[in-house]
């Protein structure tokens, strides 16, 4: 709880109107930030002397339940003091632009490519935003809820009997 308050105070100094929510979920302080300032927020959290989130644990994407927004989720870690927080930011699905975090952590490079590959989130300023796990010719973003899991071009399976 005190980490939540500490980070909240620090963020309010510069970004008071960009914090959409701050809550404690299962021992993790979780902040939802507006997508326009997410890079500045990450930079301030990384360079702050007391908080110093120097390690990017994870960067992933998600789609909200109403299927209208895409989210990018950052997990940050401060190893010497063992602080862990989560930051979320949401963008509209028709214009999913987020600033890249590769200028702060080189580790974000492939993680952002994976998020682009799965959800279609375009990271502005990314050096090499191409598909990484799927075939290069794929034109859909498979993790979005609208696309099915199975390959639709199969001819040898009859789903009418045992449905999916």
């Amino acid at each position, binding site marked *: 709880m005190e980490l939540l308050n500490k980070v909240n105070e620090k963020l309010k100094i510069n970004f008071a109107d960009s914090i959409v929510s701050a809550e404690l979920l299962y021992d993790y302080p979780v902040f939802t930030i507006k997508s326009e300032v997410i890079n500045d927020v990450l930079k301030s959290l990384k360079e702050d002397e007391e908080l110093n989130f120097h390690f990017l644990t994870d960067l992933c994407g998600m789609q909200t339940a109403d299927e209208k927004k895409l989210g990018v989720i950052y997990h940050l870690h401060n190893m010497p003091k063992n602080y862990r927080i989560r930051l979320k930011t949401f963008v509209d699905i028709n214009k999913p632009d987020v600033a890249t975090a590769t200028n702060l952590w080189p580790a974000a490079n492939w993680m952002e490519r994976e998020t682009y590959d799965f959800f279609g989130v375009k990271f502005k300023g990314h050096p090499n935003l191409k598909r990484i*796990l*799927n*075939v290069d010719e794929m034109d859909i973003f*498979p993790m979005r809820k609208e*696309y*099915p*899991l*199975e*390959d*639709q071009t*199969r001819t*040898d399976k009859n789903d009418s009997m045992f449905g999916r």
Partner: protein
Amino acid sequence: MAKEIIKRTKLEIAKSPEGLEGPGFFATKLEDVVGLARKNSLWPLPFATSCCGIEFMATMASHYDLGRFGSERLSFSPRQADMLMVMGTIAKKMGPILRQVYEQMAEPRWVLSVGACASSGGIFDTYSVLQGIDKIIPVDVYVPGCPPRPEQILEGVLKIQEMCQNESFRRRESEEYKNMLNSYGIE
């Protein structure tokens, strides 16, 4: 005078093929001899992609030695290999590469599909996994399992050896074989 021979292990020497034996000669069919030689010297190409590859490493190691059956020398170059062992999931991205490797192998060649993923896509009924390598290359023996035990992989190899021994010389030139290859689009 001669020392008594004590057999400490139950080794079975490879049986010689049926034939006519005489003083200093042994007459048999050429196909039998060639089959015997081929089956006991299959050089595998381990195309190990995922978890089944680790079971293959266990098969190659000393406990379940694959070298006993003549496959001591693994060949990673398709041009020097007889048997293509596809072990693990083949994704759609990997399909063209598997096809290229198969086309580079010289006749006679056999394909062993190890594991559920290679045989039919396994538990991964997804958009990115090829549902069985027999969609792109002809397969001789399928070894089911996820992953199959090394004993099962060895049985797969033994079945290929059986096919190898009983294969006629003309099979690879026959119309039926050529039609089968054409159905896959392989010349």
